[in-house]
C-alpha cells in the first residue's frame, strides 16, 4: 500500500502532537534555528568573558609605557624554529625587533633580529592582578614565556603601550556602558511606556509628545553639550557614570514606544480583564500578567539598543568629550587615531580597535535580530 504522503524529515508529526513547551523553551528552539544569531550569541558571550577576565587575557599591563617600543607594527606569531644543524622543531615564538632611527629624517623603523626569538606560551607568568578583583594571580592566558619580553601582537602606540592589551582591558568599560545604559533605559522606558499605555488619556499624550520631541531633534549636539559640561577634573568614576546616563538617553524612547504599544494591545485582552475582575491592583496586573507576556520582546529590543550605546560612547570619547584618557575604552583608544598623520604612521591604531567595535556591534545586532524573530509569534 502506498501512502501518498510527503512528510519532510522534520515531519508534520510535530504539528499533530504539539509538545507542551513553555514560551521560553519555544523561543529558544526558534532562536537556535537562526544560525547567524546563534553564532553571535557565542561571540557576544566571548566578548563579555573578555570584559570579565581582561587581566587574565591581556599579555601586558595597559598603562605600561616603553620608550624602545614606540609605534611597533603588529608582530606575527611563528611556529617552527630551525636549529644550528638545520632540523626544525615546533616552538611558538615571535621574532625580536631592533629599532633603527634614520638620523636624517628622524624616522623610526623596526627590523627583525634574526638571531633572537621570543618564545611564546600559554598560561605564562606576567604582571600580577586579581581575578575578578578577588583572587591574586600572575598567570596570563598567552604571551612571552619570559615576563621581561614584550611582544606587540597588534602593535603599539605612541608611548609603546600594547594595543592588544588595551583593547582587551577597554572591553570592560565599553561593554559595561552598554549594559548599564540598558538598565537605565529599561527603567525609564518601561515605566514611562507602561504608564503611557496602561493609563492612556493625558498621561499618554504627554509622554508621547515627550518621546516625539526627543526623536525629532538631532541628539548628538545635545549630548555633546551635556558631555562637554562634565568638568575635566572629575574623577573617572563620575565621568563614567554621567556618560552612561547620557548614552542611555538614546535607548529609552524606542523602548517606551514598544512597551506602550504592547500595553495598549494587552489592555483589552480577556485575561487582563479577568485579572482585573479578580480584584488585582493595577500594579499586580502589570507585574503578574502584562510584563511576563512581553518580556521576550523587551529583551530583544534591549539587545538591539546595546550596540547603539556602545557606538554613542565610542563617538563621544573619540571627540574628546566623553570618557577621558586614564580610562581605557574602545572610544579613548580610537582617539589616538584621531588625525590622519598618526593613522598613516600607525594604521593599526585605527584598524585594531575599529575591528573590535564592528565585531561587537555586529554580533549584538544579529543577536538582537534573532531574539526578536524568535520572540515574535507571527514572524514568517
Amino acid at each position, binding site marked *: 500500500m502506498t501512502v501518498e504522503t510527503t512528510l519532510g524529515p522534520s515531519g508534520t508529526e510535530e504539528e499533530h502532537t504539539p509538545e507542551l513547551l513553555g514560551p521560553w523553551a519555544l523561543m529558544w528552539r526558534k532562536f537556535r534555528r537562526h544560525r547567524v544569531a546563534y553564532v553571535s550569541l557565542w561571540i557576544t558571550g566571548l566578548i563579555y568573558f573578555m570584559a570579565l577576565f581582561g587581566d587574565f587575557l591581556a599579555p601586558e599591563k595597559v598603562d605600561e609605557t616603553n620608550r624602545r617600543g614606540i609605534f611597533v607594527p603588529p608582530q606575527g606569531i611563528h611556529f617552527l624554529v630551525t636549529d644550528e644543524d638545520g632540523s626544525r622543531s615546533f616552538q611558538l615564538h615571535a621574532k625580536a625587533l631592533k629599532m633603527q632611527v634614520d638620523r636624517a629624517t628622524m624616522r623610526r623603523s623596526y627590523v627583525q633580529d634574526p638571531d633572537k626569538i621570543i618564545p611564546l606560551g600559554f598560561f605564562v607568568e606576567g604582571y600580577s592582578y586579581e581575578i575578578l578583583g578577588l583572587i591574586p594571580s600572575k598567570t596570563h592566558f598567552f604571551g612571552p614565556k619570559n615576563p621581561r619580553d614584550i611582544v606587540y601582537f597588534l602593535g603599539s602606540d605612541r608611548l609603546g603601550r600594547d594595543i592588544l592589551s588595551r583593547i582587551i582591558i577597554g572591553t570592560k568599560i565599553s561593554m559595561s556602558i552598554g549594559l548599564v545604559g540598558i538598565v537605565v533605559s529599561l527603567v525609564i522606558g518601561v515605566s514611562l511606556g507602561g504608564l503611557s499605555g496602561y493609563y492612556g488619556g493625558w498621561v499618554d499624550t504627554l509622554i508621547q509628545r515627550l518621546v516625539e520631541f526627543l526623536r*525629532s531633534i*538631532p541628539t548628538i549636539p545635545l549630548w555633546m553639550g551635556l558631555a562637554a559640561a562634565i568638568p575635566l577634573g572629575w574623577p573617572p568614576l563620575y565621568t563614567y557614570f554621567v556618560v552612561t546616563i547620557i548614552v542611555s538617553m538614546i535607548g529609552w524612547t524606542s523602548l517606551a514606544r514598544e512597551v506602550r504599544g504592547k500595553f495598549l494591545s494587552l489592555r483589552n485582552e480577556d485575561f487582563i480583564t479577568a485579572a482585573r475582575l479578580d480584584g488585582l491592583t493595577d500594579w499586580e496586573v502589570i507585574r503578574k500578567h502584562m510584563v511576563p507576556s512581553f518580556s521576550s520582546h523587551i529583551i530583544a529590543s534591549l539587545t538591539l539598543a546595546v550596540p547603539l550605546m556602545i557606538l554613542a560612547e565610542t563617538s563621544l570619547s573619540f571627540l574628546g568629550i566623553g570618557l577621558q584618557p586614564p580610562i581605557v575604552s574602545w572610544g579613548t583608544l580610537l582617539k589616538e587615531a584621531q588625525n590622519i598623520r598618526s593613522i598613516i604612521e600607525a594604521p593599526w591604531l585605527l584598524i585594531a580597535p575599529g575591528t573590535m567595535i564592528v565585531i561587537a556591534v555586529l554580533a549584538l545586532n544579529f543577536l538582537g535580530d534573532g531574539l526578536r524573530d524568535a520572540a515574535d509569534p507571527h514572524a514568517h
Partner: protein
Amino acid sequence: MSSRHLAVFLWYHPWRATSAMFGFLYRRLLYMIPTVFLISVVTFVIIQLPPGDYLDTLAAELSDSGGLDEGTMQALRDQYGLGQPMYVQYLKWMSQILFHGNFGISFEKNIPVNDIIWDKLGWTFAISLMTLLFIWMTALPIGIYSAVRKYSAGDYIATFFGFIGLAVPNFLLALVMMYVAFKYFGQSVGGLVSPQYLGEPWTFDKFLDLLAHIWMPIVVVGTSGAAALIRIMRANLLDELYRPYVVTARAKGMSEFQLLLKYPVRVALNPFVSTIGWILPTLVSGEIIVAVVMNLPTTGPLLLRALLVQDMYLAGSLILLVSILTVIGTLVSDLLLAWIDPRIRYQ
C-alpha cells in the same frame, strides 16, 4: 441644499484634497510651536550647566589686550542678564533672538554669533540633504531588489553590507576612507575644497573640486542610514508584495515591473518617506561628528570647539538652530508624505 448635501458636496468636490492638505499643514504647524519652545529651553539649560559667569572669562581674557571697561561690561551684563535668575536670562536671550535676530556674541572670537554661523549651518544642511538624496537613491533600488529577489545572492550581499553599514560608526568610516583615499589615491583629505581654492571666489573649477571632495562625507554620513533604509524598504515591500491588490494588478495584465512600481512600491514608499522624521536628525548628528573628523567647514568643528571652551551663546545658537532646522525638515517630510499617501491627510 441641506447641510447634509452640502457636506457630501464638499467631500466629493475636487478641491477637497487641497483643503485637507491645508488642515494637515495647519495642525502640524501648531505642533511645532511647543516643540521649538522645548528645544530652546533644553538648549538654554544645557549651555548653562557648566559653572561660572562667561562674561568674567571674557573680561579676564580681554584684560590682557586692553580689556573691557566697566561701562561695556555693564551693558553686556544688562543685555544678557548675566548673574540674574535663569529664567530672566532665558527670556532676555530669547527676546534678543526673536525681536532683534540677535543670537548674542561669540566670547572666544568676540564677534556676533550671526557673523559666523550661517554659512556653516548652510553647509551642514546642504550636506545632510544631499546625504538624504544619496540614501534614497541607493536604498530604494537596492531595497526593492532585495525584496523582489528574496534570498538571492544579491539579497544576501545587500543584507551583509547593510549590517556592516549599521555596525561601523560614522567617524570610523570617515577615518578609514580618508586613510584609503590618501594612501592609495593620493587625494588630499579633509575640507570641502583643495587648499588652493580656500578663500577663492566660486569658479567652475572650484565647483568641480568641491564635487571631488563632497562625495566622501556624503557617503560616510549616509552609509548607516542607507543600510537601515534598505532593510526597512525590503521589509515593507515584502509585506506588500503578496497582498491581494498585487494579484489583482497581475490579473489585469500588467507587466511585473509596471505593477511593482505602481502598486506595492508606492504603498511601501510611505513608511519609507516617513523615515525622514527620524533620519534627518540622525544625519545632522552624523554630519556634525564626521565634520570634526574630516575637518569640514560646517557646524561640527565649530560646535565642538564652542562647547570645549564654553563659548555659551555660540554653542547655544548652534544647537538651537540645528534642532529647529531639523524640525522644519521633518515637517516638510510629513507634508511630502501626506501628498503621497491620501490616507494620511484624511485621518
